[in-house]
């Protein structure tokens, strides 16, 4: 029985720990992508392409002809022509908490150290703060410096700054075609997403328009939501009403989200092996007890205890061990999760963290408990049924099989 108890404790505890760590990283990844690229991105305009067919009446005497038009497909027109109108419309969605237009383009960046390629992102800072966590990603300088320098202030990614050996206050040149302009590093940000930190340079929208020579329009509109998990439904509705493509974060980051989900499921399956062993140990223990206690079972039956009562005795026995094991497993899971959350680990690339990220969710405890309950109770059913099937006369006579 101790073996069963130990396996239940380990099974429940490790299930909780693995779910806490994998969903912790997944949750942090989601927070990072929402904080950098928003919940929904409204991009290219959609135009339905129409195919028309001419038809002529059977009656050749009449000269009547008509055309049938039907949707053939859809065409995307790059960018957003009227960002203000689209943003006004987006703000009417109940779930939308913020919208910001962004203009971007590829440029060459040159510091006193070396040239490199980069992407300019033109933003209205106040709008962009409502759809991103850029303020919390600043590692050097400040957003106030950026705000106070509408002509030449720039936010630059930490990797790009390192590669170009740029620090706050340094100047650099952005070039596109023959157009060049000088900017100053107002702040350096680090999102942890290397694809962002390596290439993005945020400028004030007016400066980006001037540099990219796009006086109107926007490349995309970044949208943030109150309930980010409703993004796919909202995106669909936005696409239908606004006739612009709308990509929710779940679609944009599908690959990584699938990786995290697969990791979570695979660790859950691996750790469930402990619970399976607990179930097998419980089966073995109860089966042994049934063999050892046949006389007692027969006596109880002779006193008027029914088959159901006998089954319940064994199921209760399993349930008590399960309950103790589960509570100890919760404690183990919580303790190890807390210890792991303090372990130093430096991760950069898809997010930035210096410690293990864990997620504290009651559902991990519920899932671990359900797994243990199912395995242990299923394992205890067979011995309990066997105990109930014993014929008291056979047992006492010594002919029970």
């Amino acid at each position, binding site marked *: 029985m101790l073996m069963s108890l130990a396996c239940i404790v380990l099974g429940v505890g490790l299930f909780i720990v693995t779910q806490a760590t994998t969903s912790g990283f997944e949750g942090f990844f989601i927070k990072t992508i929402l904080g950098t690229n928003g919940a929904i991105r409204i991009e290219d305009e959609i135009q339905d392409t129409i195919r028309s067919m001419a038809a002529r009446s059977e009656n050749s005497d009449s000269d009547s002809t008509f055309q049938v038009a039907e949707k053939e497909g859809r065409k995307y027109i790059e960018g957003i022509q009227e960002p203000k109108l689209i943003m006004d419309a987006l703000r009417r969605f109940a779930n939308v908490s913020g919208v910001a237009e962004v203009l971007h383009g590829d440029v060459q960046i040159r510091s006193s150290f070396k040239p490199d390629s980069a992407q300019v992102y033109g933003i209205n800072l106040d709008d962009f703060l409502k759809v991103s966590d850029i303020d919390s990603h600043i590692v050097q300088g400040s957003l106030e410096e950026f705000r106070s320098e509408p002509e030449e202030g720039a936010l630059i990614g930490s990797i790009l700054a390192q590669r170009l050996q740029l620090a706050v206050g340094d100047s650099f040149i952005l070039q596109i075609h023959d157009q060049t302009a000088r900017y100053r590093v107002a702040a350096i940000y680090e999102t942890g997403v290397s694809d962002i930190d390596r290439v993005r340079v945020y400028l004030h929208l007016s400066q980006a328009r001037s540099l990219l020579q796009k006086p109107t329009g926007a490349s995309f509109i970044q949208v943030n939501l109150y309930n980010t998990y409703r993004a796919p439904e909202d995106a669909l509705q936005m696409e239908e009403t606004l006739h612009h493509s709308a990509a929710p974060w779940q679609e944009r980051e599908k690959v990584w989200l699938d990786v995290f989900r697969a990791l979570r499921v695979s660790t859950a399956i691996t750790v469930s092996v402990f619970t399976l062993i607990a179930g097998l140990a419980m089966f073995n223990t109860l089966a042994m007890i049934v063999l050892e206690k046949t*006389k007692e079972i027969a006596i109880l039956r*002779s*006193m*008027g*205890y029914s*088959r159901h009562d006998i089954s319940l005795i064994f199921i209760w026995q399993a349930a008590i061990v399960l309950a103790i094991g589960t509570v100890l497993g919760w404690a183990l899971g919580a303790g190890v999760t807390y210890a792991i959350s303090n372990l130093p680990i430096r991760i950069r690339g898809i997010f930035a963290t210096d410690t293990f990220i864990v997620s504290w969710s009651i559902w991990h405890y519920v899932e671990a408990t359900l797994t243990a309950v199912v395995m242990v109770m299923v394992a205890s059913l067979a011995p309990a049924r066997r105990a109930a099937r014993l014929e008291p*006369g*056979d047992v*006492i*006579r010594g002919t029970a099989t």
Partner: protein
Amino acid sequence: MSAPSGNIALRCQNLHRFLGRDEGRVHVLKGVSFEAQRGQVYAVVGPSGCGKSTLLYQLGLLDQPDDGQIWINQQLMSNHDDAARTAARGEHIGFVFQFHFLMQEFTALENVMMPMRKLGRLDPDAMAERARSLLAAVGLGDKTQRLATHLSGGEQQRVAVARALANQPAILLADEPTGNLDQQNSGLVFDLLMRLAKENGQAIVLVTHNPEIASRCDVVRPMRDGVFV
């Protein structure tokens, strides 16, 4: 087939029972008929393998006959399902076996309370009170809180007698109740059974190899080769 009259607690008619399978199949009971009246003690005697214990288990509804009928308190029970036979055992029948079969992890008091807990006629306090009075009646009033493992063989068998009487059954079936005891304890347990049967008007059927004990019973029924002789 007529039903038994009111004073008869237990009756069986033409009981047949086969044990074993295929070539090992043995006709153990060959049309046994028997009845036991309240307040009487019956001894079933005979050589080993003659079917005494098998008959006792049939009468106690622990086993099902291949043919024949059994009445408990004038109710035909032999053709009932397991649930009904189990309920009848709890209400009307007490068992004492050669080995006490006490629950080792429980005290004497708790062992005696077990049949009462299942029957559920009394509240917990009343159950404990009755268990204490039964243990006092079998001379163990000062050992109610002892674990079964901390009692001697004779004491354990006396607890088993108290347990068998817990629900005031009309019938007490005893399979060699003194077979595992020394002479002094055998006499003690048998005297106890006799006294309680007379006081409570219970029908007692006991299987024994002990001729001295058999001779002290009200009725002795010798058995041979699956029939009464």
